[in-house]
């Protein structure tokens, strides 16, 4: 068995992270991670005639970029594992049309990147694939249209709201060829603590993050300070403060090594209130910032926890609370 404890997968054959690529929109390019992103778009329509098409093209671009970065060819990819936030994950499926590569669609809302990497690493580890590409994408304008209001509607965004990140990220996982390995991962459970406010996703997702963190640490028998960096996906400012408190309540002391991609994504001047959200958020940070710092050896041991809110517009209009999930993946430098 490659399973440890109740929820954690330990990859014995050490699948590795061969390459990665991030494509982001102009606003993200001006944010805190701006200099790490490989491609920053000047126009977030990306030459397409709809934001949905632009999102799909961003994912395609990140795929080709990652393939290039890994030094392989498209045809070397055995499986493309991807997801996004659009209904029926059309952005991913439409992107996969042009690759001529077997495809698995994933949905875990904003946790999709961790979910894809977790499944991708398992495929490689189990010998079912040599090379797997994992990708997610999100786009501010397509998400606003689907989940919130028309862009031109003159309303104020609530102070607890987050800004959906316009970004796509793709990782190439392989049997060998790199010293950054996917060491283990933890599959999260759906957690719902009855938060109903769709403008306060951070608060809804924080309990899921803490449950997965708790399960991961206890399954692996570790403490948080064994990691150089613990990175959550898009809890935002409020959500990450809540995670801090909840972790402490559960006897887990998070220190300076804890950080949230959503909170870090934008500068204060960019007025995004609680920070970034969306499944492209952690995907773009993993494949730019985390990857480049791990290659340099500045980071050796990174715990990624991507959180997702599993509601739809219908479910929240019908008054349901927001079920959430979090998956964890550990990247480790081995030399």
């Amino acid at each position, binding site marked *: 068995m490659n399973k440890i404890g109740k929820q954690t997968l330990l990859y014995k054959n050490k699948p590795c992270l061969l390459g990665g690529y991030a494509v982001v929109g102009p606003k993200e390019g001006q944010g805190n991670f701006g200099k790490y992103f490989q491609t920053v778009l000047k126009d977030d329509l990306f030459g397409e005639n709809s934001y949905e098409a632009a999102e799909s093209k961003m994912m395609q671009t990140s795929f080709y970029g990652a393939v290039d970065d890994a030094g392989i060819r498209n045809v070397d990819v055995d499986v493309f594992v991807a997801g996004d936030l659009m209904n029926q994950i059309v952005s991913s499926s439409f992107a996969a049309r042009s690759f001529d590569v077997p495809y698995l669609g994933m949905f875990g809302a904003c946790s999709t990147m961790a979910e894809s990497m977790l499944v991708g690493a398992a495929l490689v580890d189990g010998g079912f694939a040599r090379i797997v590409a994992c990708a997610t994408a999100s786009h*501010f*304008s397509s998400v606003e249209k689907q989940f919130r209001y028309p*862009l031109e509607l003159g*309303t*104020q965004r609530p102070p607890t709201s987050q800004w959906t990140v316009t970004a796509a990220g793709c990782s190439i996982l392989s049997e060998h060829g790199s010293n950054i390995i996917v060491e283990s991962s933890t599959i999260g459970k759906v957690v719902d603590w009855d938060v109903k*406010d769709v403008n306060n996703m951070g608060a809804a997702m924080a309990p899921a993050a803490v449950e997965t963190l708790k399960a991961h640490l206890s399954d692996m028998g570790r403490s948080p300070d064994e990691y150089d960096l613990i990175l959550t996906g898009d809890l935002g400012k409020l959500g990450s403060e809540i995670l801090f408190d909840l972790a402490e309540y559960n006897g887990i002391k998070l220190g300076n090594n804890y950080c949230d991609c959503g909170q870090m994504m934008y500068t204060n001047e960019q007025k995004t209130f609680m920070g970034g959200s969306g499944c492209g958020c952690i995907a773009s940070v993993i494949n730019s910032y985390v990857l480049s710092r791990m290659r340099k050896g500045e980071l050796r041991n990174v715990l990624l926890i991507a959180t997702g809110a599993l509601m739809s517009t219908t479910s929240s209009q019908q008054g349901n609370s927001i079920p959430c999930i979090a998956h964890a993946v550990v990247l480790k430098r081995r030399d």
Partner: protein
Amino acid sequence: MFDITSYIITFLIGGAICLVGQILIITTKITSARILVTFLLLGVVLEGIGLFEPIKDFAGSGVTVPIIGFGASLAKGAIEAGASEGVLGIFTGGLSATAGGLAAAILGGFIFGVLCNSKTKK
């Protein structure tokens, strides 16, 4: 005409109505569609109980520009046509009285919808 005092009254009353709307948004987190419906119904009720006309005489555009005025016109049309034409009037009166605004809104929405594209927020 072009009377400064009446402009000041218009400003104060119109501003105050919007301020109440903003208080509702902050305290109850209601969305803009609900704000519009709430104020429109308020206008219908005010007209129905005969309070709107005296307010309008005093505040002018201060109450007719907010969507309260739109609701009041609907109700006023229905009441007046009901009085002159009977039951048929209560069905035709409201929309007839507001037809200009509705047609302008629909036509404006259509024309600019065809001409313009949505732009991403920065």
